[in-house]
């Protein structure tokens, strides 16, 4: 097993004439929290979309567990054990909270069209197991009581927690958080930070894109700073904060 869980080698993405990700090199050590920070428009979300297959790279290699995973469809990437959340929360608002997490068990269950349609859910073992596992992950993020609620009726903070529970239900090895604290109040942000640390303790590698510096500096093991699609600095939170290049990127000359 290689030490680096995820490795981006000369990763490049061009939209028309705009270079969003410019020969980026970045590695993520197994079992750590790595944060990617940078000014708005630095290409952070684009990096996530490249890793998870929503965008195809214009060049370069994405290595996961030492294997190139470029150009795979998002659902194939998910099957490799990579989960993610979205900057604009993407929950299934017409479904209940529990059902949302049950969708997260998709890859851990197997019934196909025929088996699904022959017997009602309350006669089916797998269905019970899915619902049981989903409840477990819902309790893990502290939302067990909301199980029966319509997901669309939840406040934003709870929706982000739900999205996290759904991602965790996949039992991923690598979890990418795209601005998990955006739109959250101070108390909710602290709770989210604690949850992310707890996820790391379970042995899941975490990559975080975030603007809330307090959260980033609190929980990250490594911080990578991106500007104009290029990697400009890397280090522990303390090192990055005093790096002159980083200060320039954020505050200007």
């Amino acid at each position, binding site marked *: 097993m290689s030490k680096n869980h995820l490795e981006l080698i000369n990763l490049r993405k061009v939209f028309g004439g705009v270079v969003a990700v410019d020969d980026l090199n970045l590695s993520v050590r197994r079992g750590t929290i790595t944060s990617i920070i940078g000014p708005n428009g630095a290409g952070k979300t684009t990096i996530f979309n490249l890793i*998870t297959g*929503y965008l195809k790279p214009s060049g370069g290699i994405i290595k996961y567990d030492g294997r190139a995973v470029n150009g795979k*469809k*998002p*659902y194939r990437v*998910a*099957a490799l054990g990579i*989960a*993610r959340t*979205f900057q604009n929360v*993407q*929950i*299934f*608002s*017409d*479904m*209940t909270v529990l*059902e949302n997490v*049950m*969708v*997260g*068990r*998709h*890859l851990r*269950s*197997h*019934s*196909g*069209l025929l088996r*699904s*349609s*022959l*017997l*009602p*859910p*309350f006669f*089916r073992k*797998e*269905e019970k197991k*899915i619902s049981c596992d989903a409840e477990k992950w819902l309790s893990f993020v502290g939302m067990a009581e909301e199980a029966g609620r319509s997901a669309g009726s939840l406040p934003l903070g709870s929706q982000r927690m739900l*999205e996290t529970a*759904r*991602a965790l*239900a*996949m039992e991923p090895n690598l979890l990418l958080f795209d601005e998990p604290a955006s739109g959250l109040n101070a108390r909710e942000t602290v709770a989210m930070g604690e949850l992310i640390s707890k996820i790391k303790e379970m042995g899941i590698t975490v990559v975080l894109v975030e603007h809330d510096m307090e959260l980033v500096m609190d929980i990250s093991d490594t911080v990578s700073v991106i500007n104009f699609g290029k990697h400009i600095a890397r280090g522990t939170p303390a090192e990055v904060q005093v790096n002159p290049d980083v200060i320039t990127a954020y505050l200007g000359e």
Partner: protein
Amino acid sequence: MGRQDYIGLCVFFAVVLTIPFLITNDYYISVLVFAAFNCLACIGLSLLLGYAGQISIGHAAFVGVGAYASGYLTVEMGWSPWMAMGAGVVLVVLIALLIGVPALRLKGHYLAMATFGFGTILYIVAVAAVDFTGGPAGLSDIPAISLFGLVLDTDKRFFYFSWAIVGIGLYFGLNLIHSRVGRGLRAIHGSEDAAESVGVDTPFYKIQIFVLSAVYSSIAGSLYAYYVNYIDPGPFSMMHSVLLLTMVAVGGMHKVWGAVIGAILLSLLPEFLSFLTESFQAVGLEYNEDYNTLIHGSILLLIMLFLPEGLIDGLGRLAGGVGGMINIKRHQDSAGT
């Protein structure tokens, strides 16, 4: 949530069993048999439209493929009706794959375009391929189907048979929705990106459900052929595809039950409209059959404007709203005293 649906299914079977005892007029029974065909096609369509969020504007053409496969194979080739129905299903699966695989690999409403094309082509073929379809004159002398040696050649027998098949179709559909596959489909409808992020193979799921919904239509078509014993291109035109969509939308596209209610209501509507014809004539005005299209359109428009979630959920919401107001009123009254 789920159990309610299965109680509903029991009620459904109870109603189906009792109706022939309440309605003794064969004509009305036959109207209900036609409603069953629409119901079956609509259940399939609602799985596609309401759960996977994909639009097909050519579902009547799948009904037509089922009907013509059954008609041709029994009349010209001497196949048994059951075999011919099975062959119709196989043929429809192949056609649905042919349309669905390229159209559903792309995001967006390509399926609507592709099925529109297919619907148009099938109608033209049905009219022009005289050797196979009998052309505009159609195919006649299609045999009746029999079940365990019982020939289903009376309205009452076919009523039970067709609605039993609708019941089975409902049972399969309801199970599907409350399963891993059903959740995957609803997830696609909710957010395709999120569904893919948890590993739902969206093109595969959309293709599967499209094929399944086409199979429902094909069976409806075969049953139609065995009941009427005669088919011509008329009932498989684009207009009928639009009518099927209207039925699903009127009943409520996010519930399989909505498709059932919508199909029954709109299938019975012409009977109600015939009263209209009589009253028009009574005052010396002429009623044209084409006005029916106008009325269908108006109903769809009104539903979309005032009950966009369809009759089932919409009326539930209105009833809930009225109930809620009464409760508030009571509350105020008791607070006042």
